[in-house]
C-alpha cells in the first residue's frame, strides 16, 4: 500500500496524528501553567477533595528526612498502603505493601521489608531519586487500590484502570487499560499493557489493542477482554468531566481505577494522553473532536433541535 493510500485512509477514518495532537490540542488548548497540577499527585489529590471527586485516600506526606522517624506511627493504622513519589513518572519508585507479617511489610511481589528498608526507600524518594528533574520530592503514603474482581480476573498483577479522553470537557473516547506481564503491572500501552476500547454510551468494551495491533484476549490470562461492562460507568464519566473542568486543560486524559470497596477512584490526569486509544476503539478521534467543536460553536441550535 502506498503512502498516499495510507494517508488518505487515515484521513478518512479521522485518525488524530501526533503532530495534529501536539499543535492543535496540546499547544492550543493546554496552557503550560496548568501542567504542574496534573504532574503532581498531591495537587491532584487536593483538587479532587475540593470538587468532591473520590480519589485514593492520602495517609501521609513525607517532605523531609526528619519526618521519617514518625513512620511507625503513620503506618500503624494501615495494614496495606502504597508508597509513591509525588512527581515520579513511569511507575518508578512505587512500592506496594499488601500486608504485614510481624514487624515486616509484605510487598505485592511477596518480598518482605523491615521498617529500616521502608525508611530508606522513602528517604531516596525525598532526595529526588525518582523524580525526573532530580529535584527533591515528596513521598506519598496512599490507600492501596484493591482491584475490583471484574478487572482483576482479566489482568496480570497491578491495577487496571479506565482512561477517558476529554476534549473541551466532553468525554470523546475511553479505554480500559489492563496490565500485562510485559508491562510489569503498569497500565501504560507503550509499555505493553492491553487497551480495550469502551463505548462511551454504554460502557462496554468492544475492541482491544496490544502493541499497536488489534487483539481479543489478554496475552497472560488468555481471557477475552471484549464485551465487558465497566461497572459504575456513568459515575466514572461524571468524575472525568468534573476533573477536566477543574484542571483547566482542553485536551486531557483522566485515569480512574475501580476499588473493590470504594468504587471508582480518580488516579491521575495526563496533559499529553497517547494516541493508541484510537486503535483500541477502532476509531479516529478527529470526527468526535469536530463534533464537539460544532456543538460548542452553536449551543443554541443544539438546544433548539428536535
Amino acid at each position, binding site marked *: 500500500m502506498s503512502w498516499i493510500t495510507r*494517508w488518505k485512509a487515515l484521513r478518512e477514518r479521522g485518525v488524530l496524528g501526533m503532530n495534529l495532537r501536539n*499543535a492543535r490540542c496540546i499547544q*492550543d488548548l493546554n496552557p503550560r501553567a496548568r501542567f504542574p497540577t496534573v504532574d503532581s499527585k498531591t495537587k491532584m489529590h487536593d483538587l479532587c477533595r475540593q470538587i468532591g471527586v473520590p480519589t485514593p485516600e492520602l495517609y501521609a506526606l513525607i517532605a523531609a528526612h526528619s519526618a521519617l522517624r514518625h513512620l511507625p506511627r503513620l503506618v500503624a493504622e494501615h495494614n496495606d498502603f502504597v508508597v509513591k513519589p509525588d512527581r515520579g513518572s*513511569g*511507575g*518508578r519508585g512505587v512500592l506496594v505493601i499488601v500486608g504485614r507479617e510481624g514487624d515486616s511489610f509484605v510487598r505485592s511481589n511477596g518480598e518482605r521489608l523491615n521498617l529500616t528498608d521502608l525508611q530508606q526507600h522513602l528517604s531516596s524518594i525525598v532526595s*529526588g531519586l525518582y523524580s525526573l528533574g532530580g529535584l527533591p520530592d515528596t513521598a506519598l503514603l496512599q490507600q492501596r487500590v484493591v482491584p475490583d474482581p471484574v478487572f482483576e480476573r482479566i489482568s496480570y498483577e497491578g491495577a487496571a484502570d479506565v482512561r477517558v479522553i476529554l476534549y473541551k470537557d466532553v468525554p470523546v473516547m475511553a479505554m480500559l487499560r489492563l496490565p500485562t506481564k510485559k508491562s510489569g503491572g503498569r497500565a501504560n500501552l507503550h509499555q505493553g499493557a492491553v487497551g480495550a476500547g469502551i463505548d462511551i454510551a454504554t460502557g462496554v468494551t468492544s475492541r482491544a489493542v496490544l502493541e499497536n495491533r488489534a487483539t481479543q484476549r489478554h496475552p497472560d490470562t488468555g481471557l477475552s477482554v471484549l464485551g465487558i461492562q465497566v461497572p459504575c460507568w456513568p459515575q466514572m464519566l461524571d468524575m472525568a468531566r468534573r476533573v477536566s473542568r477543574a484542571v483547566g486543560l482542553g485536551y486531557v486524559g483522566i485515569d480512574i481505577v475501580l476499588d473493590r470497596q470504594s468504587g471508582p477512584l480518580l488516579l491521575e490526569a495526563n496533559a499529553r494522553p497517547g494516541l493508541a486509544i484510537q486503535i483500541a476503539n*477502532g476509531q479516529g478521534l478527529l470526527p468526535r473532536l469536530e463534533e464537539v467543536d460544532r456543538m460548542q460553536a452553536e449551543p443554541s441550535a443544539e438546544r433548539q433541535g428536535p
Partner: protein
Amino acid sequence: LETAMSKTWLSTATALAFAAGALAVFVARKSVLGPEADGPLGWDVKVSVSGTLLTKDAAISITQPPDFRQQHISEERFESSPELRPPLPGKGAGQRKYTWRRQKNHTEPESFHLEYSFLYSRQRPTPEMERRTFQKNQAPERDANLKATPQVPAKNERIVRCAAEQAPANLSPREQAHALFKFVAGLHNLPVPAPQSALECLKQGGGDALGKARLLTALCRNRGLPTRLVAGLVLVGRGDQQLHYWVESWVGNEWLPMDPTHGHFSESNLPENYLILRIGSGPVVAARGVQSQERFEFRPRHNFAIDDYAPSPAKTFWRAVSLYSLHVSEQHMVELLLLLPLAALLVSLARTIIGIQTFGIFAPALIGLAFIESGAFPWGLAVFLVTVLVGWGMRHLLERFHLLQVPRVSALITLIIIFLLAVILGANYLGITPTRYIALFPLVILTFLVERFWTIEAEDSTSASFRTLLYTFVVAVAVSLVLRHDVIRTWMFRYPETLGFVLASLFLLGRYTGYRLTELYRFSDLIQEPPAKTSEGHP
C-alpha cells in the same frame, strides 16, 4: 478550532516575514556587492604537494600566509589522500603552519597528494589584521636580521667589497638601501639550475629571484641594515607559478620592501598582486622523509578589476557585515556555527515528518556535526557507539548506589572520561589517533544521552531505548552526510541570511499537522478496517 487556525496563520505569516527578510538581505547584498558577494575580489590560491612518503615519520608542513597589512586570507580548505592524517595547525618560527603526518605504522613507500587552498584578497585591515601587522612590522630583534649564513654570507670578502663600493658610508640608510637595490636590480635575470647563494649570484653577475634576493639581503646586512627574505607569489593572469622572492629592510623605523627581480622599491611601488606566503628564510613547504614536488596555482575569483579605491557607503557596509571580514581562524568556527541550525532543521524534519524517535534534538545534531569535523566515519561512529554502551553499563552500576542526580551525572561524566582516556591510550598504542574523533564538545551530549537512554530503558524497555539509540545515530549520520559538503558550508558563509529561511521552515514545521510517516504504519489496523458506521450521524 478557531485558535488553532489563528495560530497557524500567525506562524505562516511570521514564516513568510522571515523568508521575505532573508530574501531582501540576499538581494541587497547581491545587488550592492555584485560578484563580490561570493567572497571578496581576490585570487583563489592552491598549494598542492604530491610525491612519495618514504619514512615512517614522514610529514609535510605548509605555512599559513600571514593575515596582515592589506593581505586578507579566507576560505581555507584542506584535502589530502588517505595516506595522510588530517592536518594539524601549529606554530613554527613566528608563523602559523599546517602539518600533515603519515598514517601511523605505515613504513612502505606510498604516493600521496595534498592540497591547501585559500582565498587571497586585499582590504582595509580589520583590528585583528592590524594586530598582526603590528607584530610583523615591529623593529627587528637585535641580530636576527643581520646574521651571516652560508646562503647569505654578509661577512664574505667580495660581499664586503661590493657593498662598500655601491653604498658608501656617507649615505643615509635609505640611500644605501636604494643604491644596493639599484645594483642588484641591474644584474641579469637568469634562469639557474639550482638555488643560488648570494655569492654565486654575485659571481655569475645575475640569477633568479631567490639568488638576487639573497644577494641584496647579504649586501644590506653587511651595511648594518637589518634585512629579511620574503617568499610569496606574484599573481599575474592565472595558472602555475614558481615561488617568488624579495626582501624587506629595516630603514627609518619601518620595513622597506624591495624586489630586485622586478625592480620594485618601497611599499608604494610594490603592486597589489604580491602575495606574501612567508617572511624569513625558512621554506614555505617543508617536508621530512618525503620525496615531493609542490605546485602553486591561482586564478582570479572574478574578473578582477581594481577600480575600487573609493567604494560607495553601501558597498563598505556590506563588506563590513560580510563574514569574509573575519580572521581566518574565526571563519572556521563561524562556518561550524552556521551549520548547527541546519542540523537542527534536519532533526526536526526527521522527527516531525518521518516520525523517528531520537534522544532529544541536540544529541543527533551535535553528533552529526562532530562526524563532519572528524571526517572519518567508521572510527568516529565506533567510538561514539562504544562509549554510549559503556556509559550505559556504568549507569547501571551507578544505580546500585542510589546517588543523588547531580553527583551521579557528574560521576558518569568522570567515568566516561576515564574510559575515553583508556581508549585514546589503547588506540595510540595500536597506531590510531582517536583524539581526532573525540571532541570535548559532544562529550557532554554523550553523558546526557546515556542518562536519557537509561531513563527510557527504565520506563519503557531495553529494546525501546536501543531503538531510540539506533535512530539517533541514523539521524546523526544523515546530518553529517548532508552537511559535510563544502557547497553548503560555503553558501551559508556567504549568505548567512539563509538562516531566515531556516527559521521560516521551522515555523511552518512547527504548525505542521499532517501524519508522520511512521504513523501511516502505526495505525495500520485502523486502515484495514472498513469504516464503521458511527452512531452520531452527520446533519
